[in-house]
């Protein structure tokens, strides 16, 4: 039902414009043609800290996005330089030789001869407290399966999750579900089993404004749906709150994990803007304000944002 009316308006507008319109290629007369350094680093508690370094690309350039292989990188943890060894693992990904812990304050500085220095800092938040989780499995919604040769049963899984939000500060959360999937391998022409994040749908009137009419008119972003659902404790601060969400277990293999993250503020804003960017379709771009990707890197583009995760397996 969504956007039923929107194409109607748009067709009328675009038709009338097209009748008298004239399109031509123009020269770009702006000044933002230089590539910038891009840092993507999301250190997570109890996982090796990595950073990926690339260059941005001028939007009219035919080049592919390049990686940075010759970066000089230094890190600080809680104001001190740890005894770490940094290794380039290829594809612009560097292992920074340190495993962050909740409460760590991290600083990352990257220098290249061509682009100078960029730097950013973040704090690893405390782990989220999940006090209860239960799930129900409904096979009445049996779904189709693939690939043809592998039969995988499926149904709708509904999860009831209770988190205990600490009252001391603003907390930022991300909810995800991961499971193994069969994915086509272009190199071997076979199906491999890899872990991916599933699209989940959260049904929660407290955390989200569940707007019925939004489904008929308007574009907007779907905050309560996607492979990562983000929310803050603005409306549940200091409370124990139960969230209900569901997802299809179509094509799932092995154990399913419910992943509850606490994010640093910067990472929350980055993930939210990244999601909004991906949700703008061609129609929306014409009529909605463009989305600015949130960044916290000085001297470049990108994010250094910390997170802590509680992973709960469900059967």
């Amino acid at each position, binding site marked *: 039902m969504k956007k*039923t*009316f*929107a194409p*109607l308006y748009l067709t*009328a*507008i675009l038709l*009338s*414009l097209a009748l*008298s*319109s*004239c*399109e*031509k*290629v*123009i020269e*770009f*007369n*702006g000044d*933002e043609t230089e590539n910038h350094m891009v840092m*993507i*680093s999301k250190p997570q508690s109890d996982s090796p800290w990595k950073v990926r370094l*690339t260059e*941005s*690309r*001028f*939007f*009219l*350039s*035919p080049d592919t*996005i390049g990686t940075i292989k010759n970066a000089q990188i230094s890190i600080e943890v809680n104001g001190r330089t740890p005894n770490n060894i940094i290794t380039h693992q290829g*594809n*612009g*990904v560097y292992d920074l030789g340190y495993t962050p812990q909740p409460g760590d304050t991290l600083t990352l500085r990257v220098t290249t001869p061509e682009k100078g220095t960029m730097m950013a800092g973040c704090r690893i938040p405390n782990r989220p407290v999940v006090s209860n989780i239960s799930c129900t499995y409904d096979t009445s919604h049996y779904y189709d399966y693939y690939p043809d040769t592998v039969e995988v049963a499926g149904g709708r899984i509904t999860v009831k999750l209770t988190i205990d939000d600490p009252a001391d500060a603003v907390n930022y959360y991300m909810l995800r579900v991961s499971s193994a999937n069969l*994915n*086509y391998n*272009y*190199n071997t022409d076979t199906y*491999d089993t890899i872990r991916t994040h599933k699209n989940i749908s959260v049904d929660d009137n407290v955390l989200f404004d569940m*707007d019925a*009419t*939004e489904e*008929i*008119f*308007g*574009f*907007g972003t779907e905050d309560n749906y996607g492979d990562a659902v983000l929310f803050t404790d603005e409306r549940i601060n200091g409370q124990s709150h139960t969230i209900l969400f569901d997802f299809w277990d179509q094509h799932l293999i092995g154990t399913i994990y419910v992943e509850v993250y606490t994010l640093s503020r910067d990472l929350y804003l980055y993930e939210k*803007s*990244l999601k909004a*960017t991906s949700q*703008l379709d061609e129609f*929306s771009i014409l*009529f*909605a*304000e*463009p*989305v*600015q*990707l949130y*960044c916290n890197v000085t001297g470049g*583009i990108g994010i250094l944002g910390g997170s802590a995760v509680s992973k709960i397996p469900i059967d």
Partner: protein
Amino acid sequence: MKKNLLLLLLLIASAGAWAQHTISGTITDAKTGETLIGATVYDTISKKGAATNQHGRFTLTLKESKAVLRVSYVGYETQFHPMEIDKNQRLDVQLKGSVTLSEVVITGERVQHVESSQSSIIELPVEQVKSVPVIFGETDVIKVVQLLPGVQSGSEGMSGMYVRGGGPDENLFLLDGVPMYNVNHLGGFFSAFNSDAVKNITLYKGSFPAHFSSRLSSVLDITTNNGNDKEYHGGVGVGLISAKFNLEGPIIKEKTTFSISGRRTYGDALLQPIIALVAASEGMGDEKVNAGYYFYDLNAKITHKFNNRSRLYASYYMGDDALYAKYKYFHNSLEKDFMRLGYNWGNIVGSVRWNYELTPKLFMNVTGAYTRYRNNLALTEESVYLRYTDSYTMGFNSGIQDLTARADFDYAPSPDHAVKFGGQVLHHIFKPETSSIKVSENDEEDSYKFDTIIGQSIVHANEMMLYAEDDWRINDWLKVNAGLNMTGFQVQGVFYPSVQPRLSGRILFNDRLSAKVGYAYMTQYLHLLSNSSISLPTDLWVPVTARIKPMTSQQVAAGLFYNVLDLNLSVEGYYKYMDNLLEYKDGASFWGNSQGWEDKVCMGRGWAYGVEFLAQKSVGRLTGWLGYTWSHTDRKFDREGNILNAGRTFPAKYDRRHDVSLVLTYKFNEHIDASASWVFSSGNTATLPMQDIDPSEEGADQRYPYYYNYEVPYVSSRNNYRMPNYHRMDVSVNFHKKLRRGKRTINISIYNVYNHQNPYLVYESYAYDFRTGNDTRVLKQLSIFPILPSISYNWTF
């Protein structure tokens, strides 16, 4: 103590009242009886004067026993009236229109230009508005106003107005003193004001007098014709897209008059054969298609003069846009499909005003008004098979209604004071969108029915206003207009009060040169939810809420005003600070749904400053103006929870550095006159993602490119790109001929005469590169109006 104070007040009030007498009256057109707004009455002995108000009335209190009153108005022959003043007197003057436009025709407007204490005001003669060449030959008041310095149009062809860095919802459009909400037809390509019905146009950009309130950036005050009180006149006109008529005359000679005018586009009628041809060529012989679009507007006014002291006006405006489509398909005698779409939107404005001269010094105007904007959509689909019918119906309704009661008083207690005071009570009824969905499905085995209405409840709000202002002539060279406007807005249990001081002053160096300065504090309680750049019928007015505070602005303006030869010259600088402005959040848009709109917007600040130059010539064979504006408009949204652009300052969407407009009309003789206009402006700003980045943590995995190989656009800053400059020239020629009965005018206009492709939209796209054989990414510009010639025929009697 109280008694002493009272005595003191009485003494002050009566000071100078001895031997003072008041001359009051009405200035009208000798031929039509139409009241003249802004005409000047000037005593050449005492060097004191007054201007007529919106009802053509003036009051002049003099101490002297003799006076020679010079009565003048643009385009009319000046009259001199010597008078012995030994008592309060009435002087009703009928001015004769000038044919020759010679030196004798000293214009009242020219005197006002230098003499008035108000700055940032532009009066536009309607005849000049009608002579400016326009698109499709349709004379358009707002398009002409857009050519004035300090006023910018939005996108090409749009009727949106951006005045001194303000937004399109910050302009108050008054039709006979009543606010009008949607002033556009056809998505903004045409305005709702039919120039045949208009008598006077005044634009206030700053230094607002205290009797105006409720918008931040401008007031466009439009007064319609009362109607000829002596004989019948009228006319018909046929243009490329519309036909129009007007008729006016006395119902009771020199007592009761009427004026009615209307226009309607007929593109929909012309479209029907084309639709039929296309349907036939597409092999749709069994399918009946009918679709079209039209707009119309109708202005009507009745004026009754009880006596010289009392007049009653009843005016009415109705305008609608309508889009419709019908589709029928008879598969066979048993099976049929229907589709019907009806979409209409428009205004109704009605008002009744009563003028009464309570005493020669005290004039009263009482107004009762109703205005309504509504927007209705209905879509129905039906499939009939045998006795089973499936039907789907969707509806959408929204709108706003205002009921207004207002009283205004003009009081001239002494030769040096012109006091205005009054009040207004306005009841808003906001009807946010209501959507209805009705589904009915039947077949042999099953039936399904769904019927629901989704929407918000009606919101009532009250807006109160009291004002008082005094135009005080302190001495021969210093004049001050000081006022106070107090408003209050009550909605959903919240009350927002606002005290808005207004002050402007004029220093007269000589009778040709003056300097003016003004300050105005304004508050606005309504917001327009609209899509980014196009004016759509789905645009929705909403009131402030507990979360969304009223917008405010403070503006200072100062300038020099000079009359030389036939030219009115002015140069004005301004600085405007605006607070609680709204901008959409990243990714947000409005599409006819106000539900949760507070979550889609951010509140922030803005400021604008600039310099405007205007050289205007209103008399002689050659008339027109040259306007230039240098301006700067920025926004900053850095409050917690309302952060945009990382809290950094960014240029407003219509921030343009330079705006030039040149409008010239030349009257060769009685049979031919020609006009040309040329506009140039720096390009609008736009937000372009000029960099792409790869946001993945691991990088592309070539084994599973579908999952991991993606790029996202990176926007460095809001409105980070400036579109190419805009410029355009339009020309128009009128050929007049006197007929045995009446006069005919053929107008030939060419819009965008040198066919410059102006930017409407700039976007990233792909183009085929013949050298590489690949598609390459390019920047494209969409232009919508190439060279457009048009012709129209008008006959008047």
